[in-house]
C-alpha cells in the first residue's frame, strides 16, 4: 500500500548533500585548527627550552661572515644579516636570469635540431636530450664542478689567452674601463634597441595593412650595434682594458668569474635546455601539416612559412610548459648549496640559519621569497600568453 506523499521525498538530515558538505567542511577546518594549535604550542615550548627568542630583529645584527660573490657592497665587519639576504637574493636572480636566457637559446637550437631532416643532427640532438634528462641535476652539477672545473690547471700553470686567465680558481676576463663618454654610449645602446623595436612594430603594422614585408633584421642590427659605436667614436673612443695580472698566488684586476658560478650556470643551462628542447619539439609538431602545406601552396618560402605560419601557432602550445621550465630553473638554482655558490639558500637558509638559530623565521622568509619569485614569473608569462592566445571568433 503506497502512502500519499506531498512534496519532494524527505531524506535524513545527514543524507542531505548540502548539509553533509557543511558538516564535512566544519570538521576539516576544526581538525586543521587543532593541528595548527598543537604545532604553535610545541614550537613555543621548544623555542623557550632552547632559549631562542623569536622575531625578525636578527636581520639588523652584524653578519660577520664573508661572501665570495657580491653584486652590492658588502663587508664582513659592518654588514647585517639583512644585507646578506639581499646579496644572496641578487646572486640567485643573476643566475636565474642568465640561465633562463641561455637555456632558452640552447633549448630552441636542440629542439629544432631534433626535427632536422638531417639524420645525424636529429639523432645527436636526441641522444643529448635522453642522456641529460635521465641523470639527476645534482649529479651533473657535482660532476661539472668537482670533476671538470677542479681538474683545470692550478694558478701557476694558468691558461692565458688574449688577456684572459683560466685556472681552477676561476676565469678572469679583461675589464673595460670606459672614459667620460660611457653614459653617452649606454644611452645610444638603449635608443638603438628602442628604435629597432619600433621599426619591427611599424613593419608588422604595414604587413597587416598592406601585405608588404619590410626586412628589418639588417637595419635593426645596424641600429643596435651602429648607434653605440658612433656614440663611442664621438665621445673620443677612450677605453682602457684592465688586464688580469697573474700573481704567484692570486690574480689581480679584471672581471672574476667564480668556478662555482660557471659550473652552476653551465649545469643548469645544459639540464634545462634538454627539457626546453622537448617543449619546443612538441610545440612545433602540434602545428598540423596542413598549415605548412597550405602556406607552401600560397607560395611562401620556407623561412616565411616558419616565421609567419608555424611559430605563431606553436607559441601558444609552447609558452605554458616553457613557463614551468623557467620556474624549475629558478628553483633548481638552489642546488648551488652543493657546490658552494653563494646563492640565496646557501647564504640565508644555510649560513644565516646556522649562525642565528632562527629556524622558523629563516625558513618562512625563504619560502616567501621563492613563492614570490614563482608567482611573479608565472604572472609575467600568463600575461604574455594571454597576448598571443588564440582569439576565437
Amino acid at each position, binding site marked *: 500500500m503506497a502512502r500519499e506523499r506531498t512534496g519532494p521525498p524527505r531524506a535524513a538530515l545527514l543524507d542531505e548533500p548540502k548539509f553533509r558538505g557543511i558538516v564535512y567542511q566544519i570538521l576539516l577546518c576544526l581538525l586543521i585548527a587543532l593541528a595548527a594549535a598543537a604545532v604553535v604550542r610545541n614550537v613555543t615550548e*621548544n623555542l623557550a627550552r632552547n632559549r631562542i627568542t623569536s622575531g625578525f630583529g636578527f636581520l639588523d645584527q652584524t653578519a660577520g661572515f664573508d661572501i665570495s660573490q657580491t653584486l652590492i657592497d658588502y663587508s664582513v665587519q659592518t654588514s647585517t644579516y639583512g644585507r646578506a639576504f639581499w646579496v644572496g637574493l641578487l646572486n640567485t636572480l643573476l643566475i636565474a636570469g642568465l640561465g633562463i636566457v641561455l637555456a632558452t637559446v640552447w633549448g630552441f637550437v636542440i629542439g629544432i635540431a631534433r626535427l632536422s631532416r638531417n639524420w645525424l643532427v636529429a639523432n645527436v640532438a636526441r641522444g643529448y636530450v*635522453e642522456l641529460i634528462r635521465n*641523470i639527476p641535476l*645534482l*649529479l651533473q652539477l657535482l660532476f661539472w664542478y668537482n670533476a671538470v672545473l677542479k681538474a683545470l690547471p692550478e694558478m701557476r700553470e694558468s691558461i692565458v689567452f688574449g688577456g684572459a686567465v683560466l685556472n681552477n680558481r676561476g676565469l678572469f676576463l679583461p675589464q673595460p674601463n670606459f672614459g667620460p663618454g660611457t653614459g653617452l654610449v649606454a644611452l645610444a645602446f638603449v635608443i638603438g634597441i628602442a628604435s629597432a623595436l619600433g621599426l619591427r612594430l611599424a613593419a608588422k603594422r604595414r604587413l597587416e595593412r598592406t601585405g608588404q614585408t619590410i626586412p628589418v633584421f639588417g637595419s635593426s642590427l645596424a641600429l643596435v650595434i651602429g648607434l653605440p659605436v658612433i656614440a663611442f667614436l664621438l665621445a673620443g673612443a677612450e677605453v682602457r682594458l684592465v688586464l688580469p695580472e697573474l700573481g704567484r698566488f692570486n690574480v689581480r684586476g679584471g672581471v672574476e668569474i667564480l668556478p662555482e658560478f660557471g659550473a652552476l650556470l653551465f649545469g643548469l643551462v645544459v639540464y634545462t635546455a634538454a627539457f626546453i628542447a622537448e617543449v619546443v619539439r612538441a610545440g612545433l609538431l602540434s602545428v598540423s601539416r596542413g598549415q605548412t602545406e597550405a602556406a607552401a601552396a600560397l607560395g611562401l618560402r620556407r623561412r616565411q612559412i616558419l616565421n609567419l605560419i608555424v611559430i605563431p601557432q606553436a607559441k601558444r602550445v609552447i609558452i605554458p610548459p616553457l613557463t614551468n621550465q623557467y620556474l624549475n630553473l629558478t628553483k633548481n638554482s638552489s642546488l648551488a648549496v652543493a657546490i658552494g655558490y653563494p646563492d640565496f639558500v646557501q647564504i640565508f637558509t644555510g649560513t644565516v640559519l646556522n649562525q642565528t638559530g632562527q629556524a622558523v623565521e629563516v625558513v618562512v622568509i625563504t*619560502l616567501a621569497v621563492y613563492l614570490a619569485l614563482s608567482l611573479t614569473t608565472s604572472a609575467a608569462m600568463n600575461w604574455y600568453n594571454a597576448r598571443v592566445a588564440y582569439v576565437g571568433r
Partner: protein
Amino acid sequence: MWDAEAMSDPVETSMMRIAVTEDDVFVRSQRVSVLPPPLIETGPIGWLRANLFSSPFNAILTVAVVTFLAWAVPPLVRFLFIDATWSGADREACLAGPHGEAGACWAFVRDRLSYFIYGSYPIASRWRVDLFFAMLAFGIGWLLWLDAPRRLLGALYFFVIMPIVAYVLLNGWSLIGLPIVDTALWGGVLVTVVVTTVGIVASLPLGIVLALGRRSSLPAVRVLSTMFIEFVRGVPLITVLFMASVMLPLFVPPAWSPDKLLRALVGIVLFSSAYMAEVIRAGLVAVPLGQYEAARALGLRFWRMQGLIILPQALRITLPNIVNSFIALFKDTTLVFFVGIFDLLKTVEVARVDPKWATPVTSATGYAFAAMFYFVFCFLMARYADRIEYRLARAERR
C-alpha cells in the same frame, strides 16, 4: 644524347600538324633534351644523400657534427674502457692506466661497491636488504606488467603488505629475532630505493585525495587543497627538505622527535604528492563529463562514483604521466644529500675523497658510475611510459 627524330611516333606527328595550322598557338616542334636520370635514390649512397647532404647547409651541419663527434667520442671511449683500470687494491693501481695515460678507475668502484649498495648496514644483516630488493622487484614487476593476473592483489601487495614487511625487515624487530638497525647506518642504493619507494607508495594515495579535493564542490576543501598544492609547487624541494629537517622537530614534543631519515621522507612525500595531485587532476579532467553524469544517474555516491567509475579511467589515461613523475621523484631523491642522508650520490661523494683511492680520475669515475645507475633506471621507466602511451593511443583508435 637521345635522337629526337628517331623517337617520333604517329600520334605526335599528327598533333604537330594541327599546331602548325593555328597561328596563335605555340606548340613545340622539337623534343627537349631528356634530363639525366635521377641520381641514386636507394641504397646507402641514396640514403646518405637524402639524410645527410640534402642541401649545402645540411652538408655543412653534417661535417660539423662529424667533426665534433670525432673530437669528443674517442677520448671518452679511451677514458671509460681502453685506458681504464679494472682491478687493483688501492690508488696506486689507478695512477697510470695500462697504456700510460690514466683512465677510469673501475677498481675503485669494485672495491667500494658494497658500500655504494648497502651503506654501513651491518654485513651480517645484508641478506635482509637483498630480500627487500627482491620483494620490491617482484611487486614492481607485478604492477608494471599490464596483463598480469590478479593485478588488484598486486596493488594490495605493493601499497600495503610490502611496506609493512619491508619496514620490519629493514628496521628489525627484536621480538622475532631481527636485531634493530639504526637508520643512520642505512646508505647507498638502499636509501635511494627506500626514499623512492616511500615517495611512490605514499604520494599516489595522497595525490589522489588532493586532486579530488582541488576539484571538490566544497569551498573549504577546494581552497585548502589548492593552497597546499600551489604552495609546495612554488618552492624548491631543497627548502621543503630544510623545512622538514629543521622545523619538524620543533613541531612535535621533544620525545617524539623523528629521526633524520623520517624527516627527509616526510619532506619528499609532501613534495611529491603535490606534483602527483596535478598529474592525477589532469587525468580526472580528461574523463568525459558523461561518465560522471551516468554514475550519478545510477545513484552512486561520491566515493563509489570515484572509486568504481572515474578513478580507474583517470589513472589509466594519466599512467604515462604518473610514471614520468616517478622518474622525476627518483632523480629528486638525490637531494636528501643536503639533510645528511647517505643516499647513493652521497656515498659516492664520501668515497671519492677517501685518501685510499684519491687520484685525479677517482671523482670522474665515481660520478660516471652513479650516472650510469640513474640513467639505466630512468631510461627504462621512460621507455615503459612511452609504451603505455602507445598502447593507450591504440586502444583509443578502436
